[in-house]
């Protein structure tokens, strides 16, 4: 099967400084990947490069086997959705209107909304379980609800690849669990999901974890393989020990600063 998205020896510079120094990574449809790494490792840059928002300095990104540069902008936005950590939408905007703006790549500036658009918006609200908030202005929501509204906008795009930059950053534990359950459902529908996750314990949600360090992929595998790797200890400057919980494959991790 063709990968949903593939980076080949990808190099990206920001402000003249090289940030990604040759990243190769492929994600299959229906696969979930948690991207971890210390601050300034290039995680957000990688997410934006995969979304086609930053041009590669070298290497390339292929979406469904076709280079990003060859995709028309609207067609790209119908397949790739990006959900950022910060929500900058106006406070007075109603949740349902915010989600409906996710249909822009499907309808463009002028075409009227069709039944398909309304169905996509309703589906996104249902998946994220914020139907009861649909008429509320964003300014009246909690940070967690706002994040879900932004995710719903991404889902309304009906993407084949969902990119999330620290989606759980502002969420309490209950909202985090809710969010990752939603992402699991989306993945099961065949969407490739790539999420930058700071909390290593939470990163184990994905069956595949990739460690980015200084613009290169330092480890890639199951959560236990990657989080307990020497590469991870080196990247974070920590001693990391895994403890089985006794419940299936689930493990807890203990982190200690290096002496």
């Amino acid at each position, binding site marked *: 099967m063709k990968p949903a998205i593939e980076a080949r020896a990808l190099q990206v510079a920001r402000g003249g400084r090289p940030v990604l120094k040759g990243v190769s990574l492929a994600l299959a449809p229906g696969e979930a990947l948690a991207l971890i790494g210390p601050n300034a490792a290039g995680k957000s840059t990688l997410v934006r490069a995969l979304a086609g928002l930053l041009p590669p300095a070298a290497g390339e990104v292929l979406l469904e086997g076709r280079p990003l540069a060859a995709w028309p902008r609207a067609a790209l936005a119908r397949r790739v959705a990006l959900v950022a950590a910060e929500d900058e939408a*106006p406070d007075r905007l109603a949740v349902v209107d915010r989600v409906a703006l996710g249909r822009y790549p499907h309808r463009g500036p002028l075409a009227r909304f069709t039944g398909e658009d309304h169905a996509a918006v309703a589906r996104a609200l249902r998946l994220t379980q914020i139907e009861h908030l649909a008429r509320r202005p964003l300014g009246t929501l909690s940070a967690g609800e706002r994040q879900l509204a932004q995710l719903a906008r991404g889902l309304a795009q009906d993407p084949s690849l969902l990119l999330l930059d620290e989606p759980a950053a502002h969420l309490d534990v209950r909202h985090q669990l809710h969010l990752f359950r939603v992402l699991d459902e989306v993945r099961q529908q065949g969407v490739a999901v790539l999420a930058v996750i700071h909390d290593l314990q939470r990163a184990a949600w994905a069956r595949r974890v990739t460690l980015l360090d200084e613009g290169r992929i330092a480890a890639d595998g199951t959560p236990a393989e990657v989080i307990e790797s020497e590469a991870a200890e080196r990247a974070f400057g920590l001693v990391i020990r895994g403890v089985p919980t006794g419940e299936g494959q689930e493990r807890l991790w203990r982190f200690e600063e290096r002496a």
Partner: protein
Amino acid sequence: MTLAGRRRTALLALAIALPVAFLAALSLGSVPLSPLGVLRSGLCRLGAGGPALPPTSEVIVWSVRLPRVLIAALVGGGLAVVGAALQSLFRNPLADAGLLGVGPGAALGAVLAVNLGWAQTRFLALPASACAGALVSLLLIYALAHAGGRPSLSGLLLTGLAVSALAAAGTSVLLVATEEFRVRTVLFWLAGGLEGRGFEHALLTAAFVLPGCGLLLLLARPLDVLSLGEEEAAALSVPVHAVRLAVFGICALIAGPVTAVAGAVPFVGLMAPHALRSLVGPLNRHLLPAAFAAGALLVVVADLAARSLDARVELPLGSVTAFVGAPYFVLALRGQEGRG
């Protein structure tokens, strides 16, 4: 009340208030006429029969007051739509036509026309020259901002400020060099007002305001997406730079002629969108038409007040909108701070 309910109520209120304000503005003034008589005379002119007013009153209503009321509506509506569009673009409720640098450009053009004596001798020379000044400053801002590649939003703003300062400096120099009896003309124009404006001015304003507002309405959806932030807009396939430049240019093409015809009419572009956004929501397909109606209403009423509050002199229109707008804005901002 739900947003949809509030939206309907607000639009209904505007749909009633605007014709009432039109009728009041046609009837009232230094020569007060019966609104009923004006209404009948209007029906008569439309060929629906009914008695006309006495000949002098007919002239006052249809040749003196009507163009003035039309200009007031176009000026108010245009400034309000420009304010609403720029506020979406800059994601800041304090953005308005003043950011575009067209005001000082128009002033320079006006002063030049007066200084060279055109304003006294040639038909429409002052507004045409002010309009040209606004457009030249717009082109200058575009050219300078693009000299170093694609400009950022703050780059556009800073260039606008620099060009405005340059135009203001030029205006001061020209004012000093202008004979004193002519300076009066400029001062009256700078204070903003519609005294003595006729159908030709209404036509000049309409030629820019109506197509401009129509174009902005076509851009309502990209503007909505842009208000989510540059990155999200780009990820949703909105051509951010192209839309930004288009909106910037269209706004200047509306604000330039408006300033040229009416002088400075401050706060309309801030007040009307601000008040309407809480009533109809921030989506531009609702906000832009509602803001147009509210801005039109505001300036029609303000102009009526400017010419009828004092029987001896006519107040400058810009002062009337500032007297209302400045306190409104202080209060509105305080309310916003309280909300956090």
